[in-house]
C-alpha cells in the first residue's frame, strides 16, 4: 500500500502487462462465434427445407388441398420440381438464395423477394422502434428499482411489472384496442393498415398501439434482468472493496458497479430484440400491420411455401446474427473476460 491513491481506483482493473495481446484472443473468439453462426445458419436452411418440402404432406398437396386430383398434383409437383430428388431440390433452393432468386409466390406468381422486401422494412421499423423504447424504459426502471432496493418504489415497480409478465401479446393488443380504439375511448386507430407504398414512419399514429403492445410485453423481463444484474453488481466484493476504500457512492456506482452490470444488460437487450422477432407475428396480425409476421400468417393460410420458407429463414437468420452481435459486445464490455 505504498501508493494507495493510485491503487484504490485500480483495484478492479488488471494491469495490461499481465496479459498477452487480448486482441488476438478476441479476434479468435469472434471468428469462432461467426463460424459457428454460419454452420448454424446452414443447418437452419436444412431444417426449414426439410420441414416444408420433405415432410409427408408434401407441398403440392398442401397447395392444392384435399380435393386435388392426382393429375393436378403431379403436374404441380413437376412445376415445383418436387419430382426431383430431395438433395437436388434443396440445392437449387439453397443456391437460389445466394443468387437473389428466392422463387415465386405460389399464391400470385410474384417473386418472393419483391413481396417480402417492403414487409421486411415495415417489420424492421416496428421492431427497432419498440425495441428502442422498451429497452430505454426497461433499463431505466430496472436501475431505478435496484438503486432503491426494498424501498416502496421498488415494491410498486416489481409488483406491477410482475402482474404484466407473461401476458400473451394478443391479449395485451386486444385490451389496448378495447380501451383506446373502440369501447372506452376512440382516440387511436384500431388497425395499422398502411396504404401501398406508404412508409410506417410517415404514419406514426398508426404505430402507437402495436408499439405499445410490444413494449408492454417486453419491459417486465428487461426490468427484472437489469434490476437483478445491478443488485448483483452492487453486492459484489469489488464494489464492497471500493466502498470500504472510502470512494463516494456516486463514484462507486459509476466506476465500479455499473460497468459490471453492462454485459448482462447488453445481453438482455439483444434477447429482447430476438423476442420481438417472434412477437411481431401475432402483434402484426392483431393490428393488420403489413410486416413479415402478418405475411407469414397469410402465407400459411394460402400454403404459400416459398414465402413461408424465406420468412422463417429471415427470422432465424436474425436470431443467429443478433446472438453473435450481443455476444461480441458483451465480451468487449466485460473486462474480466478479456484478461482471463
Amino acid at each position, binding site marked *: 500500500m505504498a501508493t494507495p491513491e493510485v491503487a484504490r481506483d485500480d483495484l478492479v482493473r488488471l494491469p495490461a502487462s499481465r496479459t498477452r495481446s487480448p486482441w488476438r484472443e478476441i479476434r479468435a473468439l469472434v471468428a469462432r462465434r461467426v463460424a459457428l453462426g454460419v454452420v448454424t445458419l446452414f443447418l437452419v436452411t436444412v431444417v426449414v427445407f426439410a420441414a416444408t418440402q420433405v415432410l409427408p404432406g408434401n407441398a403440392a398437396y*398442401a397447395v392444392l388441398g384435399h380435393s386435388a386430383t392426382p393429375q393436378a398434383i403431379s403436374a404441380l409437383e413437376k412445376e415445383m420440381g418436387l419430382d426431383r430428388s430431395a438433395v437436388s431440390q434443396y440445392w437449387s433452393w439453397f443456391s437460389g438464395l445466394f443468387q437473389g432468386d428466392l422463387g415465386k409466390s405460389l399464391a400470385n406468381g410474384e417473386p418472393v423477394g419483391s413481396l417480402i422486401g417492403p414487409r421486411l422494412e415495415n417489420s424492421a421499423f416496428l421492431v427497432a422502434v419498440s425495441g428502442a423504447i422498451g429497452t430505454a424504459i426497461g433499463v431505466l426502471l430496472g436501475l431505478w428499482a435496484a438503486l432503491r432496493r426494498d424501498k416502496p418504489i421498488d415494491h410498486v415497480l416489481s409488483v406491477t411489472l410482475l402482474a404484466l409478465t407473461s401476458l400473451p401479446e394478443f391479449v395485451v393488443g*386486444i385490451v389496448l384496442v*378495447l380501451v383506446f380504439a*373502440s369501447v372506452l375511448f376512440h382516440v387511436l386507430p384500431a388497425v395499422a393498415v398502411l396504404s401501398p407504398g406508404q412508409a410506417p414512419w410517415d404514419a406514426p399514429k398508426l404505430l402507437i398501439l402495436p408499439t405499445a403492445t410490444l413494449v408492454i410485453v417486453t419491459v417486465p423481463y428487461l426490468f427484472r434482468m437489469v434490476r437483478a444484474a445491478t443488485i448483483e453488481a452492487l453486492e459484489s466484493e469489488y464494489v464492497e472493496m471500493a466502498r470500504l476504500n472510502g470512494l463516494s457512492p456516486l463514484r462507486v456506482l459509476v466506476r465500479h458497479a455499473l460497468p459490471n452490470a453492462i454485459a448482462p444488460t447488453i445481453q438482455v437487450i439483444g434477447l429482447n430484440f430476438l423476442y420481438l422477432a417472434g412477437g411481431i407475428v401475432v402483434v402484426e396480425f392483431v393490428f393488420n400491420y403489413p410486416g413479415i409476421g402478418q405475411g407469414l400468417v397469410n402465407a400459411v393460410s394460402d400454403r404459400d411455401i416459398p414465402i413461408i420458407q424465406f420468412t422463417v429463414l429471415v427470422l432465424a437468420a436474425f436470431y443467429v446474427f443478433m446472438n453473435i452481435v450481443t455476444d461480441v459486445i458483451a465480451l468487449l464490455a466485460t473486462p474480466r473476460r478479456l484478461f482471463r
Partner: protein
Amino acid sequence: MSSPAVATRTGDAPIYSVRRRESLHILRGALKTFRGATGALLTLGVVGVAALGPLLAPHGGTDLLGAPFQKPGSDLPLGADELGRDVLSRVLYGGWELLLVAAAGTALGIVVGTAAGVVAAYVRGSADALIMRTVDVLLAFPQLVFVLLLVSVIGPKTWLLVVGVGLSHAPQVARVLRSAALDVSERDYVKAVEILGVPPGRVMRREVVPSLITPLMVETGLRMTYSIIIIAGLSFVGFGLQPPSPNWGLMINENRIGLTQNSWPVLAPALLVALLTVGLNMLTDAIARVALGVDRAERAIAAEALGAEPTVDVA
C-alpha cells in the same frame, strides 16, 4: 429402526422419496408466500372454469340462440357472439381443450428436453456436442414460428400442436437441465454409485434426474405458461384448435369486429387467458424464489423467459 433400512434396500431408491418430500416442501413454502398463494388461486380458478365449465354451461357451445352480437340479457347473460351463439356457454366450453393440449405439449417438451439435457451433461463428449448443436439450431426459430412452420405443411391437427409445442420447448429445457445436471454429475453420491459399477442409464435415471427436481419444477411452470400463450396465440391467428368447437384464443379473434356492439365475447376469454398466464407465472415465480432464493430466481426466470443461456446454476 430396522424397517426403514429394509425399505431402502428393497424398495424405491430412497433418493426419490427424499426428493419428493423436498419438492412438496418447496411447493408448500411457495404457497405460503403472497405471490404463490395468489398465483395458485388464480390458476386453480381458471382451471376450474375450464374443467367444470362444460358441466355448468346453460347451452351448447355451438347452438344458435340469438342475434349476432346481441347485448347481454336475462337469457344470454354475456350476450351472443358473431353467429348468435351464447357467449357464456362458449366461454365455459372453450378452456378444457386448450389446457389439455398445453399440458400435453409441456409434458412432451419437459421429457424430451430433460432426457437430452441430462444425457448431454452426463455422457459429455460427442453426444454432448451433437445434442447442443441441435439445440442451437432449433433455438434459432421463435417458438410460435416453429409450430407455424409445421402446421403450414401438415395442417392444424391437434396432435401436431402437441408435438410442435413440445419440440419447440425441448431445446431451452435441454439447455437449462444440462447446466444443472453438469453440476449434479460431479457430486459425491453420483461418483459413489459409478464406482459401484451402476450402468450410466441407471445412474442418470435414479441419481441425476431426481436431484434436478428444483429446476424441473420451475421449468414446468414456465413452459406451461408459454404453452398456453402459444396455443391460444395460434388459435387466435387461426392455426391452432379449430372451429366450430369454441376455444378462448379463437373466440377473441372471431368476435373482434363486434367489439363495440358486445365486448363480452372478446373480453371474457381474454380475461381468462390473462388470469391463467399471470397466475401460473406468479406461482412459478414463488417456487423459484423459495427454491433458489430471491435474487437468483429473479435473474434466472427473466433470462429464461427471453430464452437466454442459463447464467445462474439452478440446481
